[in-house]
């Protein structure tokens, strides 16, 4: 014999079949990733967006959190490191690819936010495609949260009641109100948080977190 190798025709044949099947199926599969399909009713979504029922304001979200809105799930879709620096109390950090895969609760109310709001809007679309209708996003993103809730500017022309509610909301979350002329939206680390948040805030945060929102 020219080659001094043993042969194992049985196993070799089995491997041959496996290669053919594996290769043929690969051609059919195309991409090495299972496609997760979603479907949308385009007209319904267009209406929702036009009627602005796709998003909430930061103040609305803040009130929901403070009032312990039933089934509220706040999702932060920024990178892990940014989440660790600062996040909305009770929010859970989820990356976009996970949004495509994670188990969802159709009875819950999802609120998505990102730094500026674009990614959150895209994630909103993904969740809609996955069949979740109770989903909103923070259109102005974390900037809006910091500007409207944590470090709001008190409008001197507003009524006393309005001014009180803004101040109370800010204090509840451990933020502080701006005095004088409005300054541009603060960066997260600009000392927006008071060193000691009021007890009510800590308690609510504990309550929210325990629900594993």
């Amino acid at each position, binding site marked *: 014999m020219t080659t*001094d190798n*043993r042969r194992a025709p049985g196993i*070799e044949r089995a491997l041959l079949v496996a290669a053919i099947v594996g290769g043929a199926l690969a051609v059919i599969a195309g991409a090495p990733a299972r496609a997760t399909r979603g479907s949308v009713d385009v007209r319904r979504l267009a209406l929702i967006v036009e009627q602005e029922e796709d998003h909430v304001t930061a103040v609305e979200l803040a009130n929901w959190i403070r009032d312990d809105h039933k089934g509220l799930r706040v999702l932060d879709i920024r990178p892990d490191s940014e989440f660790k620096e600062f996040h909305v109390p009770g929010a859970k950090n989820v990356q976009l690819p996970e949004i495509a895969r994670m188990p969802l609760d159709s009875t819950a109310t999802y609120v998505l936010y990102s730094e500026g709001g674009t990614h959150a809007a895209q994630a909103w679309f993904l969740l809609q495609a996955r069949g979740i209708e109770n989903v909103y996003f923070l259109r102005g993103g974390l900037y809006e949260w910091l500007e409207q809730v944590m470090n709001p500017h008190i409008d001197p022309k507003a009524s006393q009641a309005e001014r009180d509610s803004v101040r109370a909301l800010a204090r509840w979350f451990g933020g502080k109100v701006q005095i004088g002329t409005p300054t541009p939206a603060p960066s997260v680390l600009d000392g927006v948080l008071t060193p000691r948040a009021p007890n009510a805030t800590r308690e609510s945060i504990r309550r929210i977190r325990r629900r594993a929102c």
Partner: protein
Amino acid sequence: MSDAAPAVVGRTAGSTTAHATTRAVTRHEAAPYASPYLAGVGIGLVLLLSFVLMGRGLGASGAFSSVVTAAVNGAAPTHAANNGFYARYLGDGAGSPLQDWLVFEIIGVVIGGLLSAALAGRIRWTTERGPAITNNHRLVNAFIGGAVMGIGARLARGCTSGLGLTGGATLSVGSWLFVIAAFAGAYAAAPFLRKAWR
């Protein structure tokens, strides 16, 4: 092709004429080699395991670079540090260049090859060569072939293991180009080396 394992024992690769006088021939008691398909699938599984565990494939020539770098660094550290090639293997200078994944892998290859040969009775202090040349001629050829491969492998940043197997499996364009070029070069040179092998 019949499964003629017993008949194979005692034959030498590629030689059906009698050359019993040459001492370079593998002896009769050695077990026949395994099916190259099965051995190949075995290597493929090892390669796959490497991807699964480490996120990288196997290699070989890189280990040689590490060894040479370590030697040059030992003899002339400044020269090594100033050379773009050696610098790559020196890293940040914290550890020895020998503390490298490929170096440890090659150590394993030596052990594994030794084990397999030992169990199959294929350990032999000998020189594999064609029947028409002398041992010394073969050793010179081996050394030259090795040197040429050393240059080629470093220029291409890999060899048949690192580029051929790893690059092949990950569908790297340059790796497939390398394999095609390597086989082309080998087949081009083969006619001139016929006397050495046949």
